[in-house]
């Protein structure tokens, strides 16, 4: 008799991380709003605080179709091109 493993591991893809910024000062900020209630409000306040502290500028904002959907390809491309740092949120 033997056990049959019913589980699967996640499919692996090679991922290259973006270079880490040396300093937070003056970074271009991307916001990903998952459309949950108050997510836009929270992200806006975070962006204001980061602008005050580190002179960051919001350069791109992506509002997802829903919390259940991924950011689409065009959205990802815009974030990659226009942002040095991306904040996504929020949970329940």
């Amino acid at each position, binding site marked *: *008799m*033997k*056990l*049959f*493993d*019913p*589980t*699967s591991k*996640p*499919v*692996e*893809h090679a991922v290259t991380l973006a270079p880490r910024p040396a300093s937070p000062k003056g970074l271009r900020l991307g916001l990903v709003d998952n459309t949950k209630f108050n997510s836009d409000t929270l992200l806006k306040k975070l962006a204001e605080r980061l602008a005050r502290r580190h002179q960051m500028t919001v350069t791109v904002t992506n509002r997802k179709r*829903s*919390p*259940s*959907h*991924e950011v689409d390809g065009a959205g990802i491309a815009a974030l990659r091109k226009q942002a040095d740092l991306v904040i996504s949120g929020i949970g*329940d």
Partner: protein
Amino acid sequence: MSEIDQATDAAALIEAYYEQGWTDGLPVVPPSDASILAMLSAAGLAGHEVLGEIAGRNTEVIADKAAINAVMAGCRPEYMPVVVAAVKSLCAPAFAYHGPASSTGGSAMVLIVNGPIARRLGINSGNNAFGQGHRPNATIGRAVRLIMMNTMNTRPGFLDRATLGNPGKYAFCFAEHEDDHPWEPLHVARGLKADDSAVTLIASNSLYQVYNQLAAAPEPLLLCFADALSNMGSPNLKGFNETLIVFAGEHADVLRTAGWSRAQVQRFLVERTKRCVADYKRAARMPGAVTEQDETTWRHVFERPEDILIACAGGRAGSWSACLPGWGNKWTRSVTTRIDTTHIDMSQRGGPS
């Protein structure tokens, strides 16, 4: 396929599956090479085939893993085509798996089976259609949940973040009562042919039964459903959600006798499921103070008649039907998938329960 040597005693084997964390809390049927192969054969699958994927979660459902889980759930091989179609529905982009599978809302994956396969497998559509006692209902639904847990990482506390969950998360599968239906079956209403076999998947947070023993006309009967679907505690009151309504015998008779069409029922419910903005604000479902205008400003729960899925099942006796509100606004849509029955003998009918 990984293998681990274990004891030969059946009870010890079942315990070993518990120890690995591979069960849903109930004992599983330990698979064998033969039972897995039989499951794959009944669906015409090779073990390596990909049944579906959730790209954003780096998840693929491979046929041999689905077959192992189906055996563990207690399925007979001929149930496998239904399980496969249900998995394809889970992986359909329109279903947007991440939300309904992982939300704190804790949805059941409700499976409605239509067409010849339902009769072939003996899937219960009558008395106690949502309850216990019928092997295909219990094990097909269970197989789908085990596949979610074991191959899609949808485990409680990990990528299943249900606050409470609901008992339908163990298994929720039933057939439509097509032989005693006021209208065309659900799969036909959704574009398939009557002799197609199909499974419709909808994620639902809850099931509540709707009672009315006096209504002899559609309007008062349906007002009970409209009220049930627009209660202030409903999570989806603000988002133009889908819902499933299951009419059972006596209520279906009221609608049939009155000559109401499915579309009439849907239109009536779209119109009557609404609340004024003042109600939303009093219950803190919307921010702000109540204004005079709020008392006469209405918000509808449903956007389109077809967002109200209507099925028929249950016993002939009793004044009960059910509402199963869908999860999550427009964030997920129900999905109907045709079932490939070409690899099983469809000339038989029913099966041991």
